[in-house]
């Protein structure tokens, strides 16, 4: 496997915080009734992001938003041949029936993670609607999926990797693009 080199930072810690704040405002703008919203973070890094957005909404609006955590391991479409990641328990705080569920993930790429997450949600109930919030949209969709809330659109090539790091998991808030080293 080719070595990876850290090419450049595309979001600093401050920019990340600003992006999440903007996404929180946009969620409020689009969903007038906060009590009908459930934020569901997709493991790993979507979970702390969902909690931060909930914290921001609480700051801005003074209202609590339900926050959940979703593992898509059971719903992946690439189970053949691949390594099976260790799963984390799914917690949905409320019955999602009739709620506006906002799926939160770090990077939107092929769209297959979101598809798997929608399948998973479906097994828990019938949401009123499903929206998607991501920190980075890097393009290259393989499914008809779009994000309502995007921190930053980043044109990438397939040999690059977008890595979101969050304090809760990685000890630092940062988004970088890694490019394969061709030596």
């Amino acid at each position, binding site marked *: 496997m080719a070595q990876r080199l850290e090419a450049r930072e595309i979001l600093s810690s401050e920019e990340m915080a600003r992006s999440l704040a903007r996404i929180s405002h946009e969620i409020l703008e689009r969903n007038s009734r906060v009590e009908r919203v459930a934020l569901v973070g997709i493991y790993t890094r979507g979970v702390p992001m969902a909690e931060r957005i909930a914290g921001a909404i609480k700051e801005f609006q003074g209202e*609590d938003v339900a926050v959940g955590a979703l593992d898509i391991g*059971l*719903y992946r479409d690439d*189970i053949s041949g691949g390594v099976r990641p*260790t799963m984390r328990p*799914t917690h949905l705080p409320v019955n999602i029936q009739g709620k506006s569920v906002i799926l939160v993930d770090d990077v939107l790429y092929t769209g297959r993670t979101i598809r798997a997450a929608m399948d998973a949600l479906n097994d828990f109930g019938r949401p009123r609607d499903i929206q998607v919030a991501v920190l980075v949209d890097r393009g290259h969709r393989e499914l008809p999926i779009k994000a309502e809330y995007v921190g930053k659109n980043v044109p990438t090539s397939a040999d690059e990797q977008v890595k979101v790091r969050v304090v809760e998991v990685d000890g630092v808030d940062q988004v970088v693009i890694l490019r394969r080293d061709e030596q």
Partner: protein
Amino acid sequence: MTQVRSEPIQSVLGGRRAVVASSPDLSEVPERPEGRRHILDLDDFSPAEILGVMQNADVMKEVLHRDIKKVPTLRGKTVITLFYEASTRTRVSFEQAGKILSADVINVAGDGSSVEKGESLHNTALTLQAMNADIIVIRHPHSGAPHFLARNLDSCVINAGDGQHAHPTQALLDLYTIQSHRGQIDGLKVVIVGDILYSRVARSNLWGLTKMGAQVVLCAPPTLIPPDFLNSSRQVEGHPFASVQIETNVERALEGADVVMALRLQLERQRAGRLPTLREYSRMYGITPKRLELAKPEVLVMHPGPMNEGIEIDPEVAHGARSVIEEQVTNGVAIRMALLYTVLTPRRGGSFPLP
């Protein structure tokens, strides 16, 4: 899990808080484990891998509590259970585990199949593999039969009990049951009472429990646990069995126990001359309410089943407040789901990587 926050915005958005609420400590479990092809015994499992299986079993247990117990994980995969020995709970729990994960499960028993016509194990297995078995779950009266299949087949092989050798899925569900009650296995005193010499459950549990740091005491009449039982492994420097104690007096063994595991006394032992009478065994080694008082008040009573109530375990204990025997059965389904998920089935046709 509704969030109540009052931190200033910068700290909320800057994420200086500790880790996500209600997540277990994952520091020891690799997010992307190396993956394995076969599950033959616990001797080649690391503690981290065992913790990973238990963590996946937690996820599976959540599925077992849903109204609709079905997830698409193993759609299109074929699981064949190949049982050359009688079994109810192990076979049924593998079948249920496979079906909940949407695999196609086919059950083959020694009786009534071409095995009766004298077909060799190798040829039976090759036939099943030719029918696209992704995972073969085998129980066989001869120790080593699953290892033989693993060497000769492309399919994944899961050992569901081979002779007197190993029963890794039972040991993992036992570990999982202890872990889910106590939060850890390290440092617990676990007493295994009964037919140690012939028990594959005891052997696999010895590996699992010692790797997870339990203090294991084996207890049986001297005919079922020879004094030199662990001598060969004890000669190996740093062998995990070095800390295992052997005790022929059940009262002494039970003192201060955190977990008591009674093993089924196989009734043919008496015919083989290992025991004078079952009645005497029961009087000397049966787990009775009175004996259980010697253990810690919060002791867990376990049994791999099927039980001979009134012989190795008193019915009052088997169905009493300290018993987790029925829970072991439910946990068995969750653990076997986790194991079917874990083994890396051969790649067939197209697959699509997720980011």
